[in-house]
């Protein structure tokens, strides 16, 4: 066939346009692709910021849930009685230990959402070439500590505690170190494996993290503080004590004195007692809404007499309980989360007094009772300088440490987890009327949460917790 001029023109035109393969590379304009989001150091640090913010992005995790769930189920809080059906719905099922349907309470999905954002950061670290080793290590260390925190929370909420079986071989959670594909159906690993991952991540984080003095992000100090709590849950007493030692002996942290105690609950968390707090830049989902410190707003959750009766009048902590009158009635509220005019309350995750109590419990279990008593008395007398020095031993000492933990760490998301790992019953004398399951006798499947319906139907390999 004869080749003609226009054909050549045509062919060359096709070749010119076809060679512009870039023409087909269209990046999203309002969002960025995952690869691009994680290919340089600045983007990586933005992704890490997003992960921190993810902890408080919705009421389903640290913005609210982790702060009230262990306390309403454990008995420090109850639901305001005349709260409407709708407003009370998210709390009632939890409070009543009654799951009508395995509904769409998607804490589970929320926690995995943050976990995946953290994993994306961790797995992108090897590709970063535009920053120093020290900078990259810092980001990696923070991300590993965050991953440990989330896995630990998942284990506390959705799995029975470490000591539920002698070798912690009972079902744990799905441990993730990288983001699964949309159709990947993973299985739960044992609680032991879950805790091993948490410990490994925290130990790596401690070795990578710098010794900074920032409280709104993980640093070496807060990673050690968290690991002391993890070892406490694992009943690794001596490791708990040694990590607690390191934290308590660190010059950057100190208990505030009794007269300043109430002031630390200002949103600025004055003083060095706060080891890790998560800031919340949202103007919604605030803890002050929940606990009724917004002027004129009726609380959703109120303080029980069970808790109030634990505190003597001279105890500084009783000043954090206030009686407030509204049209609807008079309620006792906690003022640990005072109203903030422009932003949501920051969330306290780790506080030095907890580390003292971790160490006290560890020493008591290790039969080093003087040391245990010293730590216990430090906390008791800080709260009430008029209190007498206690001398106790054996189970009495352990009971008293537990009680002090409840008093000191109330409304900070500890009680149910502490009850469960100490194999104690749930006893709620000041219980909302009409509730059948005010009390639980240990052990009970209801100490932990069921996986939501969507999680089960979305992943056929996810075995529901026993009992649900």
């Amino acid at each position: 066939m004869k080749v003609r001029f226009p054909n050549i023109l045509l062919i060359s035109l096709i070749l010119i346009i076809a060679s512009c393969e870039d023409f087909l590379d269209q990046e999203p304009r309002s969002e960025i692709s995952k690869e691009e989001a994680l290919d340089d150091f600045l983007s990586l640090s933005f992704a890490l910021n997003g992960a921190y913010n993810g902890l408080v992005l919705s009421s389903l995790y640290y913005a609210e849930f982790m702060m009230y769930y262990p306390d309403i189920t454990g008995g420090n809080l109850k639901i305001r009685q005349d709260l409407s059906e709708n407003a009370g719905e998210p709390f009632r099922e939890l409070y009543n230990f009654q799951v009508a349907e395995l509904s769409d309470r998607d804490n589970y999905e929320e926690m995995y959402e943050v976990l995946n954002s953290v994993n994306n950061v961790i797995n992108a670290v090897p590709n970063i070439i535009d920053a120093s080793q020290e900078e990259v290590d810092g980001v990696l260390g923070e991300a590993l500590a965050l991953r440990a925190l989330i896995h630990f929370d998942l284990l506390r909420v959705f799995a029975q505690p470490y000591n539920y079986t002698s070798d912690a071989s009972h079902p744990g959670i799905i441990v993730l170190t990288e983001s699964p594909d949309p159709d990947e159906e993973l299985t739960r690993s044992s609680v032991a494996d879950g805790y091993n991952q948490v410990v490994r991540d925290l130990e790596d984080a401690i070795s990578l993290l710098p010794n900074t003095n920032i409280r709104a992000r993980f640093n070496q100090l807060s990673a050690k503080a968290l690991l002391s709590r993890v070892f406490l849950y694992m009943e690794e007493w001596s490791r708990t004590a040694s990590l607690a030692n390191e934290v308590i002996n660190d010059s950057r942290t100190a208990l505030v004195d009794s007269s300043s105690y109430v002031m630390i609950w200002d949103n600025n968390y004055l003083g060095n007692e706060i080891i890790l707090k998560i800031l919340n830049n949202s103007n919604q989902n605030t803890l002050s809404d929940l606990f009724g410190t917004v002027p004129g707003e009726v609380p959703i959750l109120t303080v029980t007499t069970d808790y109030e009766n634990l505190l003597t009048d001279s105890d500084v902590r009783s000043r954090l309980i206030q009686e407030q009158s509204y049209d609807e009635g008079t309620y006792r509220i906690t003022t640990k989360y005072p109203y903030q005019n422009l932003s949501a309350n920051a969330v306290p995750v780790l506080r030095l007094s907890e580390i003292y109590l971790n160490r006290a419990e560890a020493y008591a279990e290790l039969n080093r009772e003087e040391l245990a008593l010293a730590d216990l008395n430090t906390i008791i007398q800080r709260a009430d300088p008029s209190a007498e020095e206690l001398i106790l031993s054996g189970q009495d000492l352990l009971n008293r440490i537990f009680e002090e933990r409840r008093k000191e760490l109330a409304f900070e998301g500890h009680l149910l987890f502490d009850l469960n790992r100490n194999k104690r019953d749930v006893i709620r004398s000041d219980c909302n009327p009409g509730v059948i399951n005010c009390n639980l006798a240990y052990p009970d499947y209801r100490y932990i949460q069921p996986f939501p319906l969507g999680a089960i139907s979305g992943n056929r390999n996810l075995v529901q917790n026993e009992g649900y």
Partner: protein
Amino acid sequence: MAKVAALFTILFFYHTASAQDELFKVTGQVVDPSGIPLPGVNILVKGTNLGTISNADGNFGLALPANNRILIFSFIGYKKQEMDVSSASTSLTVTMEEDVQTLEGVVITGYNVEKNRTEIVGSLDQISSEELVVERPEESFEKLLAGRIAGVTISNTGGGEAGLPVSVRIRGQGTLPSLGTSRRSSSSEPLYILDGVPLYDITEGVGSNVTAREQRLNPLASLNPSDIESITVLKDASASAIYGANAANGVILITTKDGRTGGLKVEARVAHGLSEAINNVKLLNSEQYVELYRETLLNSGFTEEEAIERAGSAEVYTDWENITIRTAQNTNANLSLSGGSESVRMRLSMNYLDNETISEGNSFMKMGSRTALNFNFSEKFKADFNGGFTLVRKESLGGFFDQNFPPNISPYNADGSFNNSGFFETRPNPLATLEQNDNNHKSFATTNSVRLSYKPAASIQLRGLIGLDYYQNRHTIFLSGLNASGRNFGGRLSILDRQNFKWITNLTARWGTTLRNNHNLSALAGFEAQEQVTDLIRGSASGFPYDDLRILQVAENRESYSDNEVVTSISYFGELSYDFKQKFFISLNTRNDASSVFGGDVRRAFFASAGLSYNFHEEEFIKNISWIDLFKLRTSYGSTGNSRIGSYAARGLYGIDERFSYNGDPGIYPTTPANPDLTWERNLKFNTGLDIGLFDRMGLVIEYYRNDIKDAIAQIDVPYESGFTSGDVNAADFRNQGIELTLSYDIRRGENFNWTADFNLATNRNEITAVKLKQFDFNPNTGTGYRIGEDVRNIYGAFYTGVDPETGVALFLLNDGSLDSLYRVANDPEHIRRIGTTNPTLFGGFTNTLIYKNWQLSIITSYSFGADVLVSNFYETDGRQISFLNQSVNQLDRWQNPGDITNTPRLSLENEPYRLTNRYLYDDDFIRFENILLSYSFSNQLIRRIGLDKANVFIQCTNLGYIYFDDTPKDRNGVAEYKNRFPESRTFTAGITIGF
């Protein structure tokens, strides 16, 4: 250098060779059966692209190559003719025969290739401007297609509201319906191509949160139906695979009118009409309302006194629907001018359409213009321009979403001001919103194309196209602080702006030859590139100090958002056709698409099809049977795709937003899961058909189709461990299959009286053949689900069995056969069952055209059977919402005393809300009278005297009404009333057309 030399050598030989060919010249005239000259007839030398067009007087002249003396004359609406001119005198007279059965004649196929019907191997249908009935007062041309083409369904999703997108389905639902309202699935609409330019599909992709409250309008309404020359619907793979990745739902080619040679012709048409609402819902009057409300309260534990007090008195009666409904006016004016010479032809048209709808505050107005310029520079080189623009103004207040208020309250206070207190403290008074709020659209749309054609030789044609499509719409919503709609915000203004800009360019080369007089071979090859850019912006503000200063900067709180999306694609395509003696045809085509929509390795997709046909009527044994004019068998198989799922679907995405920041530093956070395995949907189409022409007056087409959709994309639940609850996946395979039948018959053909009937029928069966992830993915909020062996458009829900005669509570059937009064128990995945489908299984239309002397009557009907419609539940809430919503008169039949047998439960405020049950499901079987047109054409002698070429007057009734087949009593509401929130209307128009 050597190459250039070689090139010149080749060019030289080529020109000398072709010069030797041009020896024989032929001239002549083309006329219609009554002897009137026909301009614009296509005249081609057989087997080549060499040809011409007859001029205004029907004359033509053509130089023929030495070896080929056969001419083919073709013109839309006439039968194609072949003529051997080797022995003829140099001046011919060719009489074209009118094509009455539409089985022959010329049709437009992919990439603007004109073919004779008898040459087609695929499945396509063409409707010409004459058949469209452009006098109809519809704002968008798709509405004119209802009932006209077998296998095509048109549904007016907006009810009687003008200007909203029209849903068009060719051979059934071609995509998986999304499992939720906000979830993604690929577009279900066909691909529209206007003079070579693909038009904007506004329904594709997910909505951006930037324009969340935007009411999307129909960009296709910018085209004036009177400018359309023909519409071709490509149904099967052989016809549509050349459009590749966007052809899965079929392709609709729109060709607009070109200029005609000859002196200036002017045509003008003006019509005016009135519309009235049909099938509005019958609601309770004040006495009935108060009675039912009191009964509800008593049943809910209130005392007699409380009930009387709360329900209020029946003294006032406000028929809320009636006071906001009007008799709507519409005006439609068209003017077109055309004319030209052999070398330049042009057509210019203008259009004005103003359609009020039957609701106050709701109307659609457009003004537009369209131009066609056709240049014939030489035998070899031609250029065409088609373009136009349209301005639209639409008012969207009064959308029937807040009309069924309690009838016993007045819209006005005693002093005549709007009643904005009491009930209207929290709910907007509809009369106040009509006066105080704004809700309007202003849009501008333009579609233009330039096409160049060059024929270096008789057998080769090169064509290039550059096209632009631009659509911009600004939607302004103001909720006034003077009434409850905006009181809480102190007035709220939202301005949403959407722009879509698209360019396309393609180059095609065609080549054809005839070997040994019997073997015709032709080929088409092409290249195409396109880019589409969508820009969205929203400004919103609340807290307006002055209600009538409606600009953003005066407001206290202001927010602004924007978004932007780009899609690009590059494609190669080709087609190869062969026929033996016009008896046996083979057509093969292929397309390779590369698109930016999919990332990674699956960016490219390859589509192909093959088709065969056999014209048995060319065989001697049938040729001898005088009453068989046409007997043709066709079959085809091939693949098409659907890439219209919105951009970046396969990418994992991070969002950047102020709310992701941490401690004052910017933050980014995952927003869309990555699915590297996401692949293109494939639509494998099989088609076989039989075309029969009998007795020179009857045409019959029977077709069977089977479309297998593989790897259909939908957004479904994914394992929560991925950090997402839902993601895009290739969720299922499904199939559409059915039979189509088109029959046209000249019942009467005579001097004074002609009667033509066109009937079409189609069946559709839709079935899921494989589900990729889970056995049964079901959304309990929408009732959609994918279940093997069942229809993708099934509705799943609780099975309502009626009312317990003893207690009056609603009863639902569980899967163990027992009854339960709780919907939430019965709507569990364990108990739900299929309650209906929204896919019709049998549908079509019936059109009759009667001509008696100067009178013409055309009646268009359409019908649909087998579909169900799930209607809104708020007309029948059994007391639950009676405090703020007036109820349907059907609620009068409620259960009152033990022993009552009824279908309406006992009224109570505590009744459970539910929607997904067969209680609210109706059979959507209907026959619809689309349009009845009666026109009178003045006789030629009469109008010539006053200097006109033609003049006719017409009266017309559009959407006269429906026949439904449900047994609803006359004084109750049924499917007719409940089907559309915005009632449909019936329109009477009268108009006049003149031409000179």
